[in-house]
Structure formats: structure tokens, C-alpha cells
């Protein structure tokens, strides 16, 4: 058996090596082996609804143009001009007929094909092979309006990559034929390693203490449900793990946090539609809680964009049900803005914690003592009803152990051939599908 280059998490004890948060060489390797291979969430259909629409996004550190061409097809292209490497698109979004590079005006179609080079005859003597000089394209696929892309031609399909995690993601993203609508994003730069933000978003352990001030003020002034440890530890939620993705889910109505009779649906009609699409159990009996998709998506949805070993740009979108009225959508978006995002009551309190966890790996003493993500070891099993590996608590550090195990699998692999995928077992009732 080949020895593993990276062995950063001890699955038996939960000991984690914090060097992975700081080391510049590890970071460089992550950019290739994780961000160069994985399916990455890069946007949402509702950000580019019309032909000619584009949205500027990132795959790992790399700038990417997400566009919808005249045929309605969605494209993801590296935003680096094939001539000298200038950024072709410099705005956050817009609508255009073609992309003209501001440096020497090489001009690309909405699908990245090189359409025009100034002086092609006079200056280049007709030697330009335009067919070879389009913008570098990524593979693109969509699930329920969420747009993903990968640089790796060998990567499995998005369907296999998400696998049975979709069974749970449907609870939020596949409830209505009209799908979801994205608002935002907030964009801000935080001094952390990207992995900390992802593992934290599946960490319910910190919620009652880190966020006590926000939860208490919201309970007192707005009448929001209480979020004490007493309440959270007693909730019967569970967590499921598939391919390094994590989802927490709750039974309705008893484990609902908001007392909404329809769970996440705002009207009886929306609720009926969700049951038709997803079946009784998923449409009526379950609610999705926190969820993260390997490597850098924290759904709600939010994208964690690496900018260096200890720098990360965080993008926070609000997702709303497109079947809701504009007023309802707006109210949901504003609630999301007040709670999470750069100015959110909850989110603001996370960042210093994440930053200190990330930078601890700089210190010899911290590397010697390691970090411990050992909560709930041995409590994971398979289940007849729920696909994936299940833990009977949603407050668990199993998510951390699965995430770092998946990270090791990517970092130790020479290609996708060495990266295992969980078999797909879920029965998708109703009409939930990859084209949601």
C-alpha cells in the first residue's frame, strides 16, 4: 500500500494537524488537487436569466466569467485573455453581445470562442488560429438552478459528485417548479484559511455560546425561538454525510426552529407542491439545516473563495423560493442579511474565532498539541430511510472528520481514479431531478 502523503486527521482520536491551515506549500497544492478537480459552485441561474447575461465569479482563486449565450447555454470561462493575460471582464455582472479585452481588443463570443483579433491580416499575416485561442473553458453542470463547474475533464458527473446529498438538498432547492432566486452577494475579505469557514458552518456546537448575544437579543426583542444549548442539545436533528458533503436535517414540526406550520414553505399551496415533487417524507416531514458541499460551498448559499493560506473572500447570497411573492422574497432576503453576511448578528461573531483557529498552525506549540474534533466518534451508521452515513445527532464533529478525510482523499490522489465516490442509493420520489 502506498504511504499517504497527507495524514492530517486521526479518525480514531479526532486529532487534527493545524499545519493544514497555514502552510503555503499545502495551500499551493490545494489549489491544484482540490480546486483544480472538484465541482465548485460558481453561481445560480437567476443571476444570468437572459441570453447575453454574465456574472463574474471565481473557481478557487481563479477569475471566471459565467455567461448565458444566445442558445441559452451556460458557460464558464477563465477570465484571462489568451493574448497577454489581461482580465477580459472587469465588472461584476452585465449583459453584452461579446467580450472585448480592454488591452488589445481581442474579442470573444459569449461561449468564449475567439471571434476577432485586430490586425489579423495586416499585423499577424493571417497566421492566427482562432479556433485554438478561445478562452479556457470549464465543464459546467446545473442542479436545481445552482451552477457548478470543474476544470477536470476526468471528474465524474455532477450528479455522481453530489450523489445522495441531493436527496437532502432537494428539501430546500427543489421544492417548486419555479426553483429558487438568489439575492446578493455580500462580499468581504476575512483573515482565515478557507477550510475553517467550511467546517464551522456544520458546527452546531459553537452556536449557543458564540452566538448567545445575537440569539438572546433576537429572542427578547423580536420573539425569535430560543437557541440555548438546552434547546439545541435536545433537538432530534440528524446529520448525513455523502462524498465529503454534509447536511443536517430536522423532523417537522417538532424540530422546527421557527414554528412555521409548512416548514420552509410560505403558503399552503407551496407546501402542496413540495409534497408532490418530493414525496410525503421529504416534502412534509423534513427540513434542511446547515449544509456544506465539498470543498468550498456552504449552502444557503455561500461561496468560500481562497485568497491565500490565511485570507479568504466570503460571498453570501440569500436564496428565496421563486414561487413566493416579491414581498415575501424581500422579507426573507432581509432576514438573511440581518443574521448572516458581513453585517449579520450571527456571522460577525464567527470571524475572530475562525481566524484564530486558522492561524494556530503557525505555532510550534499548537502543532505539538494538535486540535481535537472528537465529538461523536463511532456514532455514525447507515440507515434504511436516510441515505449516506448518518449520525443521530446534528451537534457532532463527525462533519469535521468527514470533511478532512475527504480533503486527504483529494490531496493524496494522483487523479480522479484515486478518489472514491459513495454509491447512489437514494430513491428520488416525485419529480426532483438534475434539471430541477
Amino acid at each position, binding site marked *: 500500500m502506498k504511504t499517504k502523503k497527507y495524514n492530517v486527521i486521526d479518525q480514531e482520536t479526532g486529532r487534527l494537524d493545524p499545519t493544514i491551515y497555514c502552510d503555503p506549500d499545502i495551500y499551493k497544492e490545494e489549489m491544484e488537487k482540490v480546486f483544480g478537480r472538484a465541482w465548485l459552485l460558481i453561481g445560480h441561474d437567476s443571476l444570468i436569466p437572459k441570453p447575453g447575461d454574465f456574472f463574474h465569479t471565481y473557481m478557487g482563486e481563479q477569475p471566471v466569467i459565467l455567461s448565458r449565450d444566445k442558445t441559452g447555454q451556460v458557460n464558464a470561462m477563465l477570465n484571462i485573455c489568451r493574448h497577454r493575460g489581461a482580465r477580459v471582464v472587469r465588472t461584476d455582472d*452585465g449583459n453584452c453581445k461579446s467580450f472585448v479585452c480592454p488591452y488589445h481588443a481581442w474579442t470573444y463570443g459569449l461561449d468564449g470562442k475567439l471571434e476577432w483579433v485586430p490586425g489579423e491580416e495586416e499585423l499577424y499575416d493571417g497566421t492566427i488560429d482562432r479556433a485554438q485561442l478561445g478562452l479556457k473553458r470549464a465543464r459546467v453542470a446545473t442542479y436545481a438552478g445552482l451552477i457548478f463547474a470543474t476544470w477536470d475533464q476526468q471528474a465524474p458527473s455532477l450528479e455522481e459528485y453530489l450523489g445522495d446529498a441531493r436527496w437532502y438538498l432537494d428539501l430546500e432547492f427543489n421544492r417548486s417548479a419555479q426553483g429558487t432566486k438568489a439575492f446578493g452577494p455580500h462580499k*468581504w475579505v476575512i483573515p482565515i484559511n478557507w477550510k475553517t469557514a467550511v467546517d464551522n458552518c456544520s458546527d452546531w456546537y459553537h452556536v449557543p455560546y458564540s452566538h448567545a448575544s445575537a440569539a438572546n437579543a433576537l429572542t*427578547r426583542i423580536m420573539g425569535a425561538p430560543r437557541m440555548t444549548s438546552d434547546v439545541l442539545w435536545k433537538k432530534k436533528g440528524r446529520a448525513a454525510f455523502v462524498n465529503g458533503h454534509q447536511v443536517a436535517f430536522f423532523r417537522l414540526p417538532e424540530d422546527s426552529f421557527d414554528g412555521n406550520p409548512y416548514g420552509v414553505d410560505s403558503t399552503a399551496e407551496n407546501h402542496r407542491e413540495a409534497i408532490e415533487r418530493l414525496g410525503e417524507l421529504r416534502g412534509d416531514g423534513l427540513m434542511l439545516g446547515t449544509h456544506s458541499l465539498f470543498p468550498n460551498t456552504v449552502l444557503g448559499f455561500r461561496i468560500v473563495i481562497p485568497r491565500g493560506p490565511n485570507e479568504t473572500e466570503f460571498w453570501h447570497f440569500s436564496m428565496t423560493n421563486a414561487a413566493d411573492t416579491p414581498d415575501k422574497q424581500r422579507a426573507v432576503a432581509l432576514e438573511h*442579511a440581518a443574521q448572516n453576511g458581513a453585517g449579520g448578528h450571527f456571522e460577525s461573531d464567527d470571524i475572530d474565532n475562525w481566524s484564530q483557529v486558522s492561524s494556530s498552525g503557525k505555532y510550534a506549540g499548537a502543532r505539538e498539541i494538535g486540535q481535537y474534533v472528537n465529538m461523536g466518534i463511532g456514532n455514525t451508521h447507515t440507515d434504511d430511510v436516510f441515505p449516506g452515513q448518518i449520525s443521530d445527532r446534528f451537534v457532532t464533529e463527525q462533519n469535521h472528520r468527514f470533511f478532512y478525510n475527504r480533503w486527504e482523499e483529494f490531496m493524496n490522489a494522483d487523479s480522479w481514479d484515486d478518489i472514491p465516490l459513495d454509491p447512489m442509493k437514494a430513491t428520488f420520489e416525485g419529480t426532483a431531478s438534475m434539471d430541477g
Partner: protein
Amino acid sequence: MTVTTKSALSGLFDETLWSTINSFYIAEAWLLDDRKLREWLDLFTEEMVYYMPRRRNVNRKELDREIPARGTDLPYFEDSRKLMEVRIQRLESGTAWAEEPPSRTRHLVGNLLIESVEDDGTVRAKTAFICHRSHGETATALYSGYRQDVLHPVDGSWKISDRTVVLDANVILDKNLAIFF
């Protein structure tokens, strides 16, 4: 005083009003920097809105899209009085870790432009600001932007019913927006 503002040219400039509002803003900035947040919140009406939109990078010809219209987007803040009370009560708890220990802030507010004065005394005013934030041991952030306020004369002072804070930044180069502007 030489008067060259647009408001002055259109006849709106009233030196006494300008001075009164200017000193109101100076006092307001001191309340923020002295961390007297309750007294600061008392400068707002009950129906207040504290609003901070995003700021997009768009081409010059599309500058009307740079600041998304209110009600169409995901702003950083669109807070009612109640939500402002949540924020302040949170900070007072001593466990709002984003501001524990609290930031040292310095707000410089200037370039006061009185945009309009209505018959009932309602004033629309625009100011530019620079705010420096120092947090913990070494974290610093520098914000610049402008504010647009709707002010009402109340009991010899002013109350703000609507504040729009527009930052100049596209991506915010700070770990959170746990301070006020």
C-alpha cells in the same frame, strides 16, 4: 463664507441651518466614537430605517445599476428601530465577540450638503465620511463613503428617520461590519 454648493446656488443654503446640522453631525460622530450607542440610537425616530446597499462594479454607461435600488437586492443593512435595538443590546451583552473587546473607531464626517428643505422643516442632507477602525491587537480597517439622511426638527434638535450609508468599497476589506456609520 463663500458659498459654492449646488444647494446654495439653487437658493437652499441657509448658513444657520447648515451650522446647526453640521454641529448635530459632529455630536453624532462623538457619540459613536465614545461608544454611547443608546444615545446615538436616540437620534433616530421610531420608524427609522438604517440602510446600506451593496456597491457593484459596472461600466460607466450603466452607473444607474451601481447601487441596487432599495427593495430589489440583498443590502448589508436594512434595519428597523427594533433590529437596531437587537444590534445594540447584543453589543451591550459583553458576549458579542465581533466587538469584544470593542473596536476603537474614529468617524470624520464632513462635506455637508443640504439637498432640500421642506415646508414642515424636513431636511435632506448628504455627508461624506472616513471611518478608521482598530480592533484587537493589530486589525485595522479604513472605510470611506457617504450618507444620505432625512432629518426632522424635534424639540430644538434633529431626529433621523432614514439613513442610507453608501460605502465606496466593492469587496469589503474588513472581517465584519459590526460598527455603525
